[in-house]
């Protein structure tokens, strides 16, 4: 099919505004799938994604649409991840498209991620048209939302499709608009191969499957290819396009098309998202712009709850990394937790996703240490180290100063909650930048905030303090000098390395106090008193005491039901097994986790 009949596009939206549902309807209406074949949400493949209603890995599907003008069009719908942690993946997926459908919820209107995503699309010179979704909700105000889109984003919205993706209303209008409003790709099939990698996944049989958008040239079986940034080379084994949930081989992929390449590549690291694929015998002159190496933003220690499972954890991380080049890990040891891994993630959601997959798909019981960011430590000898594990902080006497990552945060919030949200940002060391009303009832707040203040439970706090009426987005701004200290926790006078973390000096006392309080609740009574202390550089700043165990006896008779008594005792013994021994004190695994959520109401 000629390029005139291809449309490469994506859908952008704030979370929950109906992106995946619309994608499902498009696939359904274009007829390559019967309703029976549709899973509830075709594009969200992972269980976790379905449960959380978010897209983590970009999925792509090719469908055929017969337009009202009687002609058939190939639609390549590239689904994009919906979370700020995956911004770079989003930007590469957008770069593979020519147009973007902007979905806005008819009741909620524009949210922080709507803006972030639409600006990202516009930055990539995509044609954008809006779609108002959920118009059948009683609270829907399509006209207000249309005005909001025109005022705030500045794109035409009058006459845009008004739809209900859930109930299949207005889908035809969307499909027609895709044909009419989005440009056809304009590439040169005769030119040297130039293709953008926008995703890749590992398949045990085929090796790495590379998702590409062909800008120029042609690729087919046997083409000698080269990744321009990583330098990896291979010979193409198979090319094809994306059926819903399956890979369909074809003869060749040419300019304007979206599809996949396999070439017996063993490691997704060789096929970095954003890299350009070219023909190594006939290479293109310049790579596509925008490639960057993805960096981990958040680090934590992952340890198997049962020390014997260390090899299992290593295998699982290895397998996950095959599919997720942004996951970083290296072995480390902790006095308290034994052998484990220091892992790097794109953000807290990414961390949670990996953690849950390890627990669910690989059946591992994990202990996670407090997540932290990368600090830059400038030593008095002129050396600079990037610190990912608080335990490795040099002696304070060797430190000249430290820097921490700061993000530009944008928060959209309704008028009533501006006060509480500003308060929250201030508590989290936010530096106020600006506030503008985007409509009578809503404002966009801009703050610069240290990343380590938002990786804990900022989302939760934002949600609870705004009763759900605030949305949030951020991007990395850079590193700034800051007064940081290492807070140590001592249990029964013994320092627990896995509980140490870096904290802003001004918050250290408060943090230390809360940590002690929380640990006091988590640590069971022992035969002796257990002091829990927080310390900075050897100076104790807070203390709590777990009182000695005075009573642990249940002496019922149970009419001779010894089995019942035995089960109770077994349970008690099991409970002890799940404890970590720190000196003479047994600390439940949960204690290491619970201290992460210090701001939660008790």
């Amino acid at each position, binding site marked *: 099919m000629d390029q005139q009949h291809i449309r490469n596009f994506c859908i952008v939206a704030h979370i929950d505004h109906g992106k995946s549902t619309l994608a499902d309807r498009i696939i359904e209406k274009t007829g390559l799938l019967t309703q029976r074949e549709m899973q509830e949400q075709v594009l969200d493949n992972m269980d976790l994604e379905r449960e959380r209603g978010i897209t983590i890995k970009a999925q792509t599907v090719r469908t055929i649409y017969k337009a009202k003008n009687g002609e058939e069009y190939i639609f390549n719908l590239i689904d994009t991840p919906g979370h700020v942690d995956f911004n770079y993946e989003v930007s590469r997926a957008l770069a593979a498209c020519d147009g973007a459908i902007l979905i806005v919820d008819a009741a909620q209107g524009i949210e922080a991620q709507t803006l972030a995503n639409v600006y990202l699309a516009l930055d990539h010179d995509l044609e954008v048209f809006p779609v108002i979704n959920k118009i059948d909700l009683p609270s829907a105000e399509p006209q207000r939302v249309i005005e909001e889109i025109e005022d705030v984003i500045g794109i035409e919205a009058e006459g845009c499709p008004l739809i209900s993706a859930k109930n299949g209303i207005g889908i035809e209008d969307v499909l027609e608009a895709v044909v009419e409003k989005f440009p056809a790709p304009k590439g040169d099939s005769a030119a040297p191969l130039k293709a953008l990698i926008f995703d890749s996944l590992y398949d045990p049989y085929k090796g790495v499957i590379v998702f590409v958008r062909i800008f120029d040239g042609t690729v087919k079986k046997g083409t000698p290819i080269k990744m321009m940034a990583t330098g990896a080379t291979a010979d193409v084994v198979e090319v094809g396009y994306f059926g819903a949930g399956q890979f369909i081989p074809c003869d060749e992929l040419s300019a304007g098309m979206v599809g996949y390449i396999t070439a017996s590549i063993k490691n997704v690291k060789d096929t970095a998202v954003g890299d350009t694929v070219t023909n190594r015998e006939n290479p293109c002159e310049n790579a596509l712009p925008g490639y960057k190496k993805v960096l981990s933003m958040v680090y934590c220690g992952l340890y198997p709850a049962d020390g014997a499972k260390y090899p299992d954890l290593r295998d699982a991380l290895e397998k996950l990394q095959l599919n997720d080049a942004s996951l970083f890990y290296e072995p480390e040891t902790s006095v308290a937790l034994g052998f484990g891994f220091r892992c790097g993630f794109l953000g807290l959601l990414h961390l949670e996703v990996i953690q849950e997959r390890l627990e669910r798909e690989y059946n591992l019981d994990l202990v996670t240490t407090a997540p932290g960011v990368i600090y830059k430590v400038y030593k008095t000898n002129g050396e600079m180290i990037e610190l990912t594990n608080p335990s490795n902080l040099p002696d304070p006497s060797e430190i000249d100063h430290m820097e921490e990552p700061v993000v530009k945060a944008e928060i959209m919030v309704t008028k009533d909650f501006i006060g509480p949200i500003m308060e929250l940002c201030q508590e989290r060391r936010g530096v106020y930048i600006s506030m503008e009303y985007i409509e009578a009832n809503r404002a966009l707040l801009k703050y610069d905030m240290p990343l380590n203040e938002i990786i804990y439970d900022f989302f939760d706090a934002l949600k609870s303090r705004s009763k759900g009426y605030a949305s949030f987005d951020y991007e990395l701004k850079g590193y700034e000098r800051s007064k940081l200290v290492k807070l140590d926790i001592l249990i029964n006078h013994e320092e627990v390395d896995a509980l140490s973390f870096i904290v802003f000096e001004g918050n250290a006392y408060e943090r230390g106090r809360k940590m002690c309080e929380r640990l006091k609740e988590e640590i069971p009574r022992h035969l002796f008193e257990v002091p829990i202390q927080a310390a900075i550089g050897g100076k104790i700043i807070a203390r709590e005491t777990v009182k000695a165990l*005075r009573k*642990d006896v*249940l002496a*019922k008779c149970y009419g*001779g039901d010894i*089995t019942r008594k*035995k089960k109770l*005792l077994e349970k008690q013994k099991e409970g002890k097994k799940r404890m970590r021994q720190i000196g003479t004190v047994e600390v439940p695994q949960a204690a290491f986790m619970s201290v992460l959520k210090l701001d939660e109401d008790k």
Partner: protein
Amino acid sequence: MKTNKELEIYIHIPFCVRKCNYCDFLSFPGCEDIHGEYVRALIREVKAYAGLYGNREVSSVFIGGGTPSILDPALTTDISETVFTSFNVAGDVEFTIESNPGTLSDKKLLSYRTAGINRISMGLQSADNDMLRKLGRIHTYEEFLDNYDKARKAGFENINIDLISGLPGESKDGFEKTLRKVTGLRPEHISSYGLIIEPGTPFFDIYGEEAEAEERKSLPSDEEERAIYYMTRDILKDAGYHQYEISNYALKGYECRHNKGYWTRKEYAGFGLGASSMYEELRYKNTPDIGEYLNADFDKNVQTVMADVSSEPFEERDELALKEIKKLSKEESMSEMMFLGLRLNDGVCKQMFYDAYGMLPKDVYGKEIAKFKAEELLDENDKYVYLTKKGMDLANYVMSAFV
């Protein structure tokens, strides 16, 4: 193994007038219409097992509940007669029935005596009427006194009074009053259990883990609970009651044989709904489903139990009125001997352990015993390994190391 072994018999009566607010025992309020049918099934069961337990000498019979005294005394007599005719009951048998003060009468008590019952256990729980109301008991202290007198008059010379300490809102002084009143009556035996808030009971909803902190505060703290426990021990000791088990006290010569049997791993046959038994090294338990029980083919149960003594592993048997059957390994048996024996003030008898397993406790549990001795929770003499006073406070902590 030894010949002519002793056997204890437990008979469960799963009926009561009303469920008390703390009670999680298997018992149904009301249900008068099925009392007769239940007792008929019970009698079938007792008869069915007679052959299995053969020539063992029955040293104790215990009718527990629920509230066994709710039954028409004629039914109780039928049960007793069946036991006496089906089993080799010792001449000096300890034959106990549990009762709720408020369900007894002269006629009932006399009929028990005639049926061979020689010990009565009365669930008083508290001598404070406000507490009795809170617990959901059906009687007052005065009604109890009346029933107690009647029992004495009927000739019961071995009476137990059950008490519960650590009630919500009850002070140490409050429980002291109960203890003083009860010791004044001179029952032969006193059981004093600390209140346990069991899931599924009304008390759990009010005082359980998920309940309001405010309500939970009316329960004694661990420290207060222990203070009450120590007080109980002291008052009862001064009144001539020696403690022989974590929660049980008796005048000289009146320790409950049945209770001690459980902790020394005597064999026992449990009859009735949900009742547990130990035959040879096999523990089995009846169904808790009343419909299943009433229609059970007990001969089949007996065959199953017999088969399981010699065959391993055991399969699930849904069609039977048996809930659990488990042949204990030597390790499990030893573990039981330890954690059960530790409930007794005497402790685990070394000779008994050696006779059963050909080893001494220290040969098997040397590490654990040494650790707990160092923590002053266990001690030993020539004959026994036992919990210290501090060890009794932390019995579960110690026992759980032996399972």
